[in-house]
């Protein structure tokens, strides 16, 4: 698929990518390189800058290949083999150094040093682009953690790695581990603070819980938002849009993101994710309270003003504007690595909800005027409405001759009687069958496992099956 970049679909690469740092910027650029060939030259130049600053030669080769796929024959570029080679050599030296260090520490049995060696190796492999080795060393370092703070650091590193890899299903595990580590950390932190003046253990415990609160918030504040973001992204990645919506809009303030701001996502991204997921799954009142009236999430929205326009248009039932905005920024959405695979589904969900919302107050409406309100063609709107009627979102029927949608008039009395009759008949039939079954059991007419020499069941059957039902 290809995302167009033109006047109708504006996308400013420089201002977009300048907000990101580290490997995510490279990943994003490569993603853009694949999807937006019209700006590939510019993208490739930016990517090259950043790749050259790092040490990942494999990624470099991959980026060149992707670029060459889309580029004209005269614009082809070759891999800068000299740079790659020297970088590979450097990497080998660095890796040897780190591994030797690890070996020394291991023979010395110094736990803390071993942990740090593993962590360094993890960081190294990550920067080289060998994610599986990186993950291996990060998780190995856990065995040598002595403080829960170290466990927490490990979890955060792994989470960064997982999100970079877009391996969403594993995120929850590490968020959980980090949470547990956080609890331990804050508890011990609290006891340490209270331990000085408390003689008895019981009292100490009491004091600890009393002081736990401020200690917790201090510890937590640093990582809580990160963990929330990781959880929200994992929900999004697993297409649990409703959970993702709640997770995004309930996140802590942007400053809690710390170094993840730019390293993983930008606040603007969070605003987009949160709003799209909310519009696709939440009710109007929930959107009103969680997005429009939330001061925390409002801060995120400030970063992407068009998102506020989107919400406003939706709440004002200007659905044509909603669809227009979605279309206008579709390139922006498609070029986001986390949102990319969900844009299509989310857009459909939002449009379907909008259609259902729009029809709600009407008893009947012409398809034509509905098409006008949404800026869609008649065929398209008819197809969509039929889909919604079939899925039960819209309770109406279509007059195919006059192209009118009419709300279903349900005679509650008739419906009730029909239901009661149905239920009565069903109960009678069920009772009848159950009684027969009960009697069968009483008479011990129970299907027994076939004995080896007596296969009466199947043979009786074979005879029966001689009769075909050919009428």
């Amino acid at each position, binding site marked *: 698929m290809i995302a167009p970049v033109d006047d109708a679909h504006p996308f400013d690469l420089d201002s977009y990518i300048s907000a990101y740092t580290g490997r995510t910027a490279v990943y994003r650029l490569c993603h853009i390189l694949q999807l937006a060939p019209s700006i590939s030259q510019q993208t490739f130049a930016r990517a090259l800058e950043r790749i050259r600053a790092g040490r990942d030669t494999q990624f470099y080769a991959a980026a060149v290949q992707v670029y060459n796929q889309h580029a004209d024959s005269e614009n082809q570029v070759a891999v800068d083999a000299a740079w790659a080679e020297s970088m590979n050599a450097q990497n080998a030296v660095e890796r040897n150094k780190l591994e030797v260090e690890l070996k020394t520490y291991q023979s010395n049995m110094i736990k803390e040093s071993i942990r740090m060696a593993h962590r360094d190796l993890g960081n190294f492999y990550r920067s080289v682009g060998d994610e599986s080795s990186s993950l291996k060393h990060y998780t190995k370092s856990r065995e040598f953690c002595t403080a829960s703070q170290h466990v927490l650091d490990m979890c955060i590193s792994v989470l960064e790695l997982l999100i970079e890899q877009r391996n969403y299903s594993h995120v929850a595990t590490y968020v959980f581990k980090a949470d547990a580590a956080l609890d331990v950390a804050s508890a011990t932190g609290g006891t340490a603070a209270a331990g000085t003046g408390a003689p008895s253990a019981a009292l100490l415990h009491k004091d600890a819980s009393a002081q736990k609160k401020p200690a917790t918030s201090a510890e937590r504040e640093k990582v809580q938002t990160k963990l929330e973001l990781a959880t929200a992204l994992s929900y999004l990645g697993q297409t649990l849009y409703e959970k993702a919506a709640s997770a995004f809009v309930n996140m802590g303030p942007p400053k809690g993101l710390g170094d993840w701001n730019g390293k993983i996502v930008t606040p603007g991204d969070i605003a987009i994710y949160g709003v799209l997921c909310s519009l696709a799954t939440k009710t109007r009142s929930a959107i009103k309270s969680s997005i429009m009236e939330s001061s925390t999430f409002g801060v995120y929205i400030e970063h992407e003003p068009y998102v506020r326009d989107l919400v406003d248009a939706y709440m004002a039932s200007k659905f044509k504007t909603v669809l227009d905005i979605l279309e206008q920024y579709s390139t922006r959405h498609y070029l986001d690595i986390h949102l990319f695979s969900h844009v299509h589904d989310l857009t459909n969900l939002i449009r379907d909800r909008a259609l259902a919302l729009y029809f709600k107050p009407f008893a009947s409406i012409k398809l034509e005027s509905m098409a006008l309100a949404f800026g869609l063609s008649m065929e398209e709107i008819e197809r969509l409405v*039929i889909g919604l*009627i*079939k899925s039960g979102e819209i309770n109406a*029927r*279509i*007059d*195919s*001759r*006059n192209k009118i949608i*009419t709300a*279903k*008039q349900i*005679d509650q*009395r*008739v*419906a009730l*009687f*029909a239901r009661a*009759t149905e239920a*009565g008949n069903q109960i*009678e*039939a*069920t*009772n*009848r*069958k159950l*009684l*027969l*079954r009960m*009697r*069968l*059991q009483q*008479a*011990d*007419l*129970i*299907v*027994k*496992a*076939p004995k080896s020499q007596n296969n*009466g*069941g*199947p043979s*009786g*059957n074979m*005879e*029966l*099956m*001689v*009769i*075909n*039902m*050919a*009428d």
Partner: protein
Amino acid sequence: MANQAQPENQQQLPTSLDGIVALITSSTSPVALAEQLREFSKNRDGEQELILASSLPGGQEPLEILDVKNHTVGWAFILSARLAAIASKTIETGVPPLQALSHFCENHDPEQAALVPDRMTLFARSLVEYVELSNEHELPACVPLLLTLLNRSQGGLATLSPIHALFARLCVRTRNFDVSLPVLRTPITAFSPTHIPSQSQSQSTASSSSLAGAMVSQPSSERSTAKSHSQKGAGSELLLNYTDHLVYHYAGGLTFAVLNHWAEAEEFFEIVVTAPIQSVPSAIQLEAMKKLALVQLILYGKTKELPKYTSSALPRLFRNSPYAALVNAFPLQRRELRATLDKERSVFEQDKNLGLVNLVLTFAPRWCLQKLTATYSTLSLKEIVEHVGLTDGTAGTAIEQARELASSMIANGEIAAELDAEGFVHFADVDPAHVISKEKVERLLRGAQSHASMLADLDREVLRSKEFLGKALKNRDDGWGASEDDMMFGGMAEMKGRGHGMDWAEENLFE
């Protein structure tokens, strides 16, 4: 009766047909006679059946001596042994004329026949086997004979016996579907004995010698069962077992399906599928499951969830069969339905379900159109053609087929709609079938009341039963029984009260 039986029990058992006929004619108690004859046929290996099947020394027909009404037990033994022997080709002469058979069916004494259910089954089964062997075209002649047997049996049609299964199967084989309807429509409320009614046990003190004899003979009879198939006739195989129940309902389901009584067919197949099982489901159950799914597709346009007490193995087996693909594609994906049919034709053919599958496919457009009524209030015939996926074919152009489809469905009351001259179908908002009238409600209420009283009767029966009282008394010792009983009666009184409330509500609503 027990006292009368005693001296005869002690007599030496006869060794020839002569003696047997004498025993039969001299016996005054059918109960004792049944016991003795059963004893006789148990005693030796296969020979005694041959003795029973032979004729008298002078070539005289033993049945001519005996009166069918008074000596029903004797008739049953001799006739069944004879037929069985002929059917298994052990003897070739002495075929009783058909009149004798129908004479027996029509004039036997049901009370005496109830004493020898195994012999009656052997008679019925051998009858069918024998006729099939000698002249298959005469099989239909057996149908009325078996029907007479069933109608005249002591428990009546409502008591399931192996003859029920034989009969239902025979009707399917001979395509005498209509004949079996009255039998199939009688709900089963009881079962013929599943083990030989042993009078010897109830009067064990009186006839201790015969009991001892029976016990001595036990090993030999077991040996004989293993030795020859025909000897199984003496065993429990001839009494009602679970296969009879499965076969009866399976054949019944087939009958209803052929006659297009889909709802009843569904119920019968469901009974087979949900039959209580010990561990492994029977092959008949799996076949019934397949047919049940097909019938439900025709009846409801989709399959229904099976009751909770269904064995979990059956749906698992079913899911792996091509039938599951059929169920998933029904009714909208016509092309996939066709493709499944073409691909799995051999499987359907092998299962002898091809006809039914084809029928399911012809029902697909009806359910398509039925589904469209939920989405559209008006549709042109042309659009129906598109949605249903009709094509020009032997049955006329697609439009004609659509018109035919719509008008037949309207005529059958499957959809509530009108077809106008311009070729538009207007679907009504309210299905007139659902519109309620006073008569309809009254009828429903009467049905519900009779059902409730039936259940109440059953409840009382359970309350009176030995088993329940035993348990209740045991509980009473623990001090719980009394309060439970009170609660139960309270509950029943409340139910009655509610019943009156319904009468009152009904009056209010409709007058």
